[in-house]
């Protein structure tokens, strides 16, 4: 997902046209990643409220998705399939029946779990009307992805700024308006099923052709490229300035968690301790993606934000390394 973002940014900077077949393969991988990410989230969210049966079942269903990814790319995660100008591996026609069979099985099992989850009244009692982010706050705090869509904000990079094959394959924006954790759950569940359909459509519509573009020996330095990708957690942006020797001069990636974390204080305001973990969990946080450390002096209310250089210096001081 990030590799797609980076490659697209470089391709934009260098004006490289990616072959259609490669764009379809990218779409398939992105959607498979969305399926396994949402199933992983469902399991963790269920675990947070003590529902370990859903955790185990969701992760059991997730396993064949990882298997599919391994079949296509050679890796269960961190697929390493993208290169600037296309993809490294093709999905040959002979593989299709096997993929479709696994997809069918995943869809059936996912539907079964989702039906069980949707009709569970105890689960509804824990998730409905809890962790509410009103629509206007979701817009004001620029919440992203399923967190925003659960509050009735219809944003989805796949539809708003199509990339890969999303301009050609039907893509639906799943919006719920109940603004609570339940809405975020339903959004993710609907997206999971929609992703399975998108993968199927892509396999069907995939055109023949090369999977990598012919690239000039060097991409000239000083070019600027920006691309946005709808990650399972929300939109991800990559900004690249090309440099000498086919290396990036500057590269900035923005993951959605830092943005979504801003919504958590609104969610937990006035709620009990029991609701805090699941409210935080409902944005599907990735703390390593937030790359920001700040300390608040409770007495004076002073806020200090540490930069990377600060952290580096403190680390050196503490451990006495040069």
């Amino acid at each position, binding site marked *: 997902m990030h590799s797609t973002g980076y490659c697209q940014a470089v391709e934009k900077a260098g004006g490289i046209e990616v072959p259609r077949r490669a764009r379809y393969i990218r779409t398939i991988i992105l959607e498979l990643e969305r399926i396994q990410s949402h199933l992983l989230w469902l399991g963790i969210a*269920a675990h*947070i*409220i*003590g529902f370990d049966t*859903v955790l*185990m079942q969701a992760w*059991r269903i997730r396993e064949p998705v990882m298997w599919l990814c391994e079949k296509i790319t050679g890796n269960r995660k961190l697929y390493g399939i993208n290169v600037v100008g296309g993809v490294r591996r093709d999905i040959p026609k002979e593989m299709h029946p096997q993929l479709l069979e696994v997809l069918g099985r995943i869809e059936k099992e996912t539907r079964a779990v989702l039906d069980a989850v949707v009709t569970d009244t*105890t689960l509804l009692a824990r998730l409905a009307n809890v962790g509410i982010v009103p629509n206007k706050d979701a817009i004001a705090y620029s919440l992203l992805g399923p967190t925003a869509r659960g509050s009735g904000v219809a944003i989805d990079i796949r539809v708003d700024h199509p990339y890969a094959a999303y301009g050609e394959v039907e893509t639906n924006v799943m919006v719920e308006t109940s603004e609570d954790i339940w809405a975020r759950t339903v959004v993710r569940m609907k997206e999971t099923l929609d992703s399975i359909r998108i993968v199927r459509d892509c396999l069907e519509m995939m055109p023949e052709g090369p999977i990598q573009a012919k690239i000039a020996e060097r991409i000239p330095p000083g070019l600027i490229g920006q691309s946005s990708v709808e990650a399972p957690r929300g939109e991800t942006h990559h900004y690249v300035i090309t440099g000498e020797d086919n290396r990036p001069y500057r590269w900035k990636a923005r993951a959605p968690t830092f943005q979504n974390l801003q919504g958590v204080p609104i969610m937990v305001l006035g709620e009990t301790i*029991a609701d805090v973990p699941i409210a935080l969990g409902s944005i599907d946080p990735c703390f390593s993606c937030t790359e920001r450390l700040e300390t608040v002096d409770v007495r004076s209310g002073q806020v200090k934000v540490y930069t990377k250089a600060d952290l580096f210096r403190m680390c050196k001081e503490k451990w006495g390394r040069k």
Partner: protein
Amino acid sequence: MDYSLGQTIGLSVVQVVVVLLLSPLLEGLIRKLIAFVHSRIGPPVYQPYLDILKLLGKEEIASSRSFLFRYSAVIALTAVLTASLLVPMFGKPPLGFAGEVIVFVYLISVVAVMIYMSGVTSGSPYGLVGAGREVMMVLTVEPVLAIALITAAVKSGSMMFGDMVAWQLSHPPALSMVIVGVTLFLAIVAQLARLPFDIVEADQEIMEGPFVEQSGPKLALFKWGFYAKQLIFASLLVSVFIPWPHVGKLVLDALITLAKVIVLLVLVGVVHAVNPRLRIDQSIQFFGLLIFAAAAGLAFALVGS
């Protein structure tokens, strides 16, 4: 039929040993069942024995110098084992005396108080939150237990478990007993800290609450107390509220009771596996209604049905 002093002591020792040795096995069975629902292989059935052995062999670490923090586990386990002497598991309980029902309810409260004390004295904020939750749970769950036992006492006209069983065996099932039996089952799920009432510990929210600082032998004793409580409550429910079939042969009856206990704990395990954790306010609401249901059962008993 009253036991002589020698018989009482002998039977007491046997019952305590049976409870201590058998209860981890039942816990192992429940874990296996939950693993089955999870599509997991699960730990071996004897895993709880290994857990207890391992914890007993660990060093003693205390986060607090409080007397109650150090000895709450011992007192809790002692209370559970004493309570086990009052419950008719295999025929008449070893320690039968008038008013034993009241003593039983108090002994079970002692366990709750010790859990509370362990939380309060642990010096951890999680422990405090857990202790607060424990109090709220006890205040709503124990009335259900008490009302259920009072109903049985009203029906049988005796405050002794032995007489209740005898009354149940000599009479057809009564509506009031069925109602309080069901409410008692739900109270037991909460008493055993099983989902959806696993609120006091709630490891994802408050990291085991009152037990957050408990470790080593102390934790082993708390765990053992919980396992024993499982067996005691299950055998209380099956022997007082579902005493049939009763053949009159000690060994056969004991086996039948054990089978019924396992069936009941399987039910508890299934309830545990198919529910997420409730919030404490939702649980209070639930048990508030349940108290009314149990009271309705008691009212039925008072008018004679």
